[in-house]
């Protein structure tokens, strides 16, 4: 007996050191907290980032926006495009080892529709309770309530939860309490620790059903900080492996000088707007909105303050077929004055304008100060406010609380132009941070709905182009730039490729550690 104990004690340190020597742990900073990890509630970039690592969907997206198999190995679309049948991989299993079955897909969708938050708005009117049926243990059929052409593109947003595990912990809120802090998914990473204010750590599941390639990332530590000096000192001390995409140009420059780092770039479908509240004076006047767009110094913003790509309308040009090739907006203060002269505020000075940006984000503050200076020259009195992100999501819920102008990034949550239009401009999305324009325009709604209803791609793109023209004519926003994502990454880390679906490029299963 005693000998066995000694033997065990003798072996333990060996085993521990063997386990410690190999792992590749990376540290990534995010600029905001993880709001939720419940797949029925995810909405912003950190939520999706957590979800992309902790959960799997039936399908995933490749860099070109094409659907690729994940939990489902293949799928068939019915000839009338009214139903889609998914065939789940025979070896697909959850993190607890139980197999992924059709009933889990049915439960995940039903739960999503019932809670009706996060990605649920993608399926409003498309999927109804009972729309999804299990044909057999590994086959599941989606019967669409109406033709919805972007449906397949939205499938990756359905993250599949382990129905047995969630039902066992359902409580009286469909497991919302349980899934707020636990993971019941099939994703490649398991949740190791999560402290809301400071960060989250996820750990590689070695038994992940799709397997792992060379040099897998064993542990990812997300550290929440939007303080540039902290990011720089973490990089200098060797703690940071990969920066967020929201650092200031100075930080990228500073990190590029450190021998350990490389800067990776990728032009994304994320657009940066000055969202103009169309229901609040004075931006309820189209001439005032045009004046603001004309008083925007696009070259300084996308050249000096935050280097980015061209954005000439509401839709980024990555959606090549649907994109309307419109001229770049001009920076012309005289023309801006002329627009004010045409508005209901002609002859007035000190027209009050509220302007919000995300606090402690250096470039947003700089853009705010630039806009304030230019707008003041044409006759506005701009009140700048720096608000924390959770405050912005809150003020976006009421039209009278939404500022005249807000600096907001928006990227597609699924790879279809519909994602850009529906979430920002459709009446049904009003009251979210993505649609601080408060358009509520029946014509716009109809165009978005029409595009959804047609299966003909050419017809759809025609509608999208007309819609872009209409939004540009109405000056829904000032279209600043598309985001060129930059990350400072350790030279040993590889795998960042932009994907036109929010945060799916931060699924660390695709990354690898190239040094020994």
């Amino acid at each position, binding site marked *: 007996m005693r000998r066995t104990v000694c033997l065990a004690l003798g072996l333990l340190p060996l085993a521990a050191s063997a386990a410690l020597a190999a792992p590749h742990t990376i540290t990534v900073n995010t600029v905001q907290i993880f709001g939720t990890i419940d797949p029925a509630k995810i909405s912003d970039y950190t939520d999706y980032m957590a979800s992309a690592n902790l959960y799997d969907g039936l399908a995933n997206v490749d860099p070109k926006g094409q659907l690729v198999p994940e939990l489902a190995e293949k799928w068939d679309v019915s000839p009338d495009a009214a139903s889609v049948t998914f065939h789940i991989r025979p070896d697909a299993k959850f993190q607890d080892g139980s197999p992924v079955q059709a009933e889990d897909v049915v439960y995940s969708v039903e739960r999503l529709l019932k809670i009706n938050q996060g990605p649920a708005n993608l399926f409003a009117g498309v999927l109804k309770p009972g729309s999804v049926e299990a044909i057999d243990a590994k086959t599941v059929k989606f019967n669409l309530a109406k033709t919805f052409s972007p449906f397949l593109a939205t499938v990756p947003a359905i993250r599949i939860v382990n129905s047995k595990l969630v039902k066992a912990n359902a409580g009286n809120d469909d497991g919302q309490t349980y899934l707020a802090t636990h993971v019941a998914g099939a994703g490649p990473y398991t949740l190791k620790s999560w402290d809301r204010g400071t960060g989250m750590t996820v750990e590689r599941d070695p038994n992940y059903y799709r397997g792992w390639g060379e040099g897998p990332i064993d542990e990812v530590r997300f550290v929440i900080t939007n303080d540039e000096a902290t990011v720089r000192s973490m990089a200098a001390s060797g703690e940071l492996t990969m920066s967020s995409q929201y650092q200031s140009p*100075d930080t990228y420059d500073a990190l590029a000088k450190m021998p350990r780092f490389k800067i990776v770039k990728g032009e994304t479908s994320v657009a940066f707007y000055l969202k103009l509240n169309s229901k609040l004076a004075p931006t309820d006047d189209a001439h005032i909105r045009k004046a603001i767009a004309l008083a925007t110094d696009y070259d300084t913003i996308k050249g000096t303050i935050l280097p980015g790509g061209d954005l000439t309308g509401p839709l980024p040009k990555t959606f090549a077929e649907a994109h309307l090739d419109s001229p770049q907006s001009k920076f012309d203060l005289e023309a801006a004055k002329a627009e004010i002269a045409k508005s209901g505020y002609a002859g007035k000075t000190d027209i009050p304008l509220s302007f919000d940006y995300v606090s402690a984000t*250096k470039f947003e*503050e700089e853009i705010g100060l*630039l806009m304030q*200076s230019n707008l003041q020259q044409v006759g506005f009195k701009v009140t700048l406010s*720096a608000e924390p992100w959770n405050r912005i999501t809150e003020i976006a819920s009421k039209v009278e609380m939404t500022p005249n102008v807000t600096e907001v990034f928006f990227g597609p949550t699924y790879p279809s132009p519909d994602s850009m239009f529906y979430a920002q401009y459709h009446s049904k999305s009003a009251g979210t941070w993505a649609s601080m324009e408060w358009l509520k325009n029946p014509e716009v709604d109809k165009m978005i709905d029409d595009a959804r209803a047609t299966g003909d791609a050419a017809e759809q793109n025609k509608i999208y182009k007309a819609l872009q023209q209409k939004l540009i004519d109405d000056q829904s926003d000032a279209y600043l730039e598309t985001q060129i994502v930059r990350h400072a990454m350790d030279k040993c880390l590889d795998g960042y490729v932009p994907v036109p679906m929010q945060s799916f490029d931060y699924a660390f299963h695709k990354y690898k550690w190239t040094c020994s």
Partner: protein
Amino acid sequence: MSELAAAPARPQVSIAYQNWHRFSRNPTAVIGSVIVTVVVLTAVLAPWIAPHPDHVGSIVNFRARHLPPSAQYWFGTDNVGRDIFTRVLFGYRVSLLLAAVVLAFAVPLGAALGLIAGYFGGWAEIVIMRLTDIALAIPPLVMALAVTAVLTPNLTHAMLAIAALWWTWHTRLIFSITRTLRAQEFVEAAEILGASRFHILFRELLPNCASAILVKTSLDFGFVILIGAALSYLGLGVQPPTPDLGTMVASGADFLPDRWWESMLPGAAILFVALGFNLLGDGLRDLYDVESVR
């Protein structure tokens, strides 16, 4: 008395002259008063003496951003190309104004409560002094953060919260002085002559506390400016583009250590003014020999 003996040639020296004489022999007091005078003058005269007075308003110049200190920009420029020296001079206005507002509220209130508690004693003393103890137990910075969490987060609300707690120190000080004074003959004499309570409180007792209040207030100026800077550093700043020293330090800290001037020089400006008021307060304390003011 030794001062009188030191100036035998002028037997008619006024009290003011004696005070000045003693004051001018005290190097801390002189340095402190020079600093305070310089700061107050620059704050008042900022629009005329600042090299780039337009940089206080809504102006950006991205071609001149992040410039190091030079003959044109003494303290360098910030991240949108504004002259930091100019903004520091105007930042003093905000700091001094806020300190003046807080103390204009806190000092009279604190002194009045201290006089009442010290002179009347009894229930007045119990109620006022226990309230003071409670208020003293709340850290001003925490109170300011709590108040701004409820109201909109800006510096005005934060300073209101500070003012709501700051009177306590004056109450304690004046209470202890008044309690010793109330047994003295001049108070009794006034009472026997039938002077009103108002007269006794504000004509007899208050003038005898004046030196203590003056010393305490000049020391307070430095502390309140520091707390105001701490609060605006924490993000409870004034409306942009209004310059504010704490906000400038916070905003410049993002560019440390390479662009040290953007946070270090406004920080040095805070140090300068806080030091000035502290030296002045120390000097006044030595002058009036007020032991009770720490």
